């Protein structure tokens, strides 16, 4: 309940942004705000994994891509050639298939977005389990390298497989009708609606994670971050908690992938790229690692700026630079600087207690 209340101001800001843009006739900003919200969904999930459980992942763009690519492929690739196989007829009888016509008027038989979404997210979760069991035994650099390897494999698969459109990716992804009249799509007429869909999804994710980190599980995760062995000796099943968090963050990434792909109407291999993973890690670091609100704020701000094209062709370079600067000057994140600075100003003393330091 308290967590719900802490979300309310944010909800007010969300509505405020909408009203402001509509008053100043700058509604086009909402498009980037929507996309930023989806990316931030991935980022808050990664924040719990990295900041609270202390496990780095340089492969989260991979999970994002699994979600996005699978739902894109399932909702666009026609199953007509396979009509008559048991799997397809099984799906059909379960009402999970949709028939229609493509751009050129040819008959099309595809999986419904809801079913595709569930299949995509479940697949991402299963892959996270399979990858996570061996990989989470590693620590530090080794874990970073193993997850990096996973990210590269997904990127290369997306580039290599015809089913996933190779370098072109998949386009013409249909709208995702959540409820009658409510659909995730890039149509201009649905812009406001999609802005709210994205933000409500992000807020739900935020409430879930805030509750999680404040519970027995959250305490266990922070214990693991402090010392694996000591946590184990306290009766915390470290292997299981690490895996659960890894899978949870992968699910957040996959859901973000599914929704953003429907919103964009397509997905390309750059979404699976390694630099995307690095960017997500950089944003979590800027936000302050173990700081969900910081991760959320930075996720929105940096993604928004990047999507608006502020950084131009130096986009990836900027995120690399941010990572270096943050590690050097504010390893506890942007927000920690402000807190300390303000404390110092308030009390007018050079020496201040190390409230922000961890």
């Amino acid at each position, binding site marked *: 309940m308290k967590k719900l209340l802490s979300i309310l101001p944010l909800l007010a800001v969300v509505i405020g942004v909408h009203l402001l843009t509509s008053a100043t006739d700058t509604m086009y900003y909402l498009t980037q705000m929507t996309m930023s919200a989806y990316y931030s969904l991935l980022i808050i999930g990664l924040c719990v994994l990295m900041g609270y459980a202390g496990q780095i992942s340089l492969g989260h763009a991979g999970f994002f891509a699994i979600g996005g690519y699978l739902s894109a492929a399932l909702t666009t690739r026609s199953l007509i050639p396979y009509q008559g196989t048991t799997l397809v007829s099984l799906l059909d009888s379960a009402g999970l298939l949709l028939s229609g016509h493509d751009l050129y008027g040819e008959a099309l038989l595809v999986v419904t977005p809801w079913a595709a979404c569930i299949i995509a997210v479940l697949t991402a979760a299963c892959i996270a389990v399979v990858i996570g069991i061996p990989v989470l035994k590693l620590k530090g650099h080794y874990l970073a390298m193993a997850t990096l390897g996973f990210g590269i494999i997904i990127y290369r698969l997306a580039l290599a497989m015809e089913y996933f459109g190779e370098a072109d990716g998949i386009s013409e992804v249909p709208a995702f009708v959540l409820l009658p009249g409510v659909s995730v799509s890039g149509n201009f007429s649905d812009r406001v609606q999609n802005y709210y869909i994205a933000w409500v999804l992000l807020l739900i994710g935020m409430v879930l994670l805030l509750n999680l980190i404040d519970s027995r599980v959250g305490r266990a995760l922070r214990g693991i971050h402090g010392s694996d062995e*000591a946590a184990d*000796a*306290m009766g915390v099943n470290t292997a299981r908690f690490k895996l659960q968090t890894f899978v949870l963050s992968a699910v957040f990434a996959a859901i973000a992938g599914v929704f953003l792909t429907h919103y964009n109407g397509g997905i390309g291999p750059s979404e699976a790229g390694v630099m995307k993973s690095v960017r997500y890690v950089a944003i979590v670091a800027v936000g302050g690692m173990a700081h969900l609100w910081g991760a959320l704020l930075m996720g929105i701000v940096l993604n928004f700026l990047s999507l608006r094209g502020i950084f131009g062709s130096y986009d990836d370079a900027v995120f690399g630079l941010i990572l270096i600067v943050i590690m050097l000057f504010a390893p506890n994140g942007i927000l920690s600087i402000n807190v300390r600075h303000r404390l110092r100003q308030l009390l007018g003393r050079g020496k201040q207690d190390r409230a922000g330091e961890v």
Partner: protein
Amino acid sequence: MLKIRNLESGYGKIKVLKHVSMHVDPGEIVTIIGANGAGKTTLLSTIAGLVKASSGAAEFKGTNILKTKAAVIPGLGCVMVPEGRQVFATMTVEENLLLGGHPLQKQGKQVMTELLEHQYELFAILRDRKKQLAGTLSGGEQQMLAMGRALMSRPSLVMMDEPSTGLAPLIVKEIFQIIVRLRDEGNTVLLVEQNAKAALGIADRGYVLETGKIIVQGPAEDLLANQDVQRAYLGREKVEEK
């Protein structure tokens, strides 16, 4: 309570413990003394499931725990206070304690509050410090926190690994008095110590571990009087002076 027979354990090819047999009965303080590298910590870690035994048996309250995972053992009632405290530095004192109660947390808030209250009574300083980050405590306070954290799971056996490490003599005395008090309240303690004199001073029984083998065992007073033990671990001259 705890029975160990012919335990062999170590790291990879290196055997640290060789045919160690010992036991701990309910309500006593048993101490294991020995020099650096004798295998004291390995023995505790093996019991706690953090190091795998290669052969032998360890029964805790009648069940073999050698194959049990480390995270399950505290739930059975056997908990370790690790060497060097190992408090979770970035968490507050109260969060550290709550984490120690992890195996019992499903029993609800009421139980947790009672347990917290009990630890604050036992270690008054922790109450004053409960909102403070554990990393900012003094060594002695961290040791108390580590003990309180272990007691949060209502263990039947508390294993302490070198609680005197790096503490001022005065604080060591205080810690040892608390251990005696724990025993008097009905707890069972297995105490591993390099500070043989202090440990034998409060223990009921003791074992002397040397290069992975138990060479002497018996009531604490006997060990204190034992010539070999005096020479090797107590510093003979000092004992003679007294």
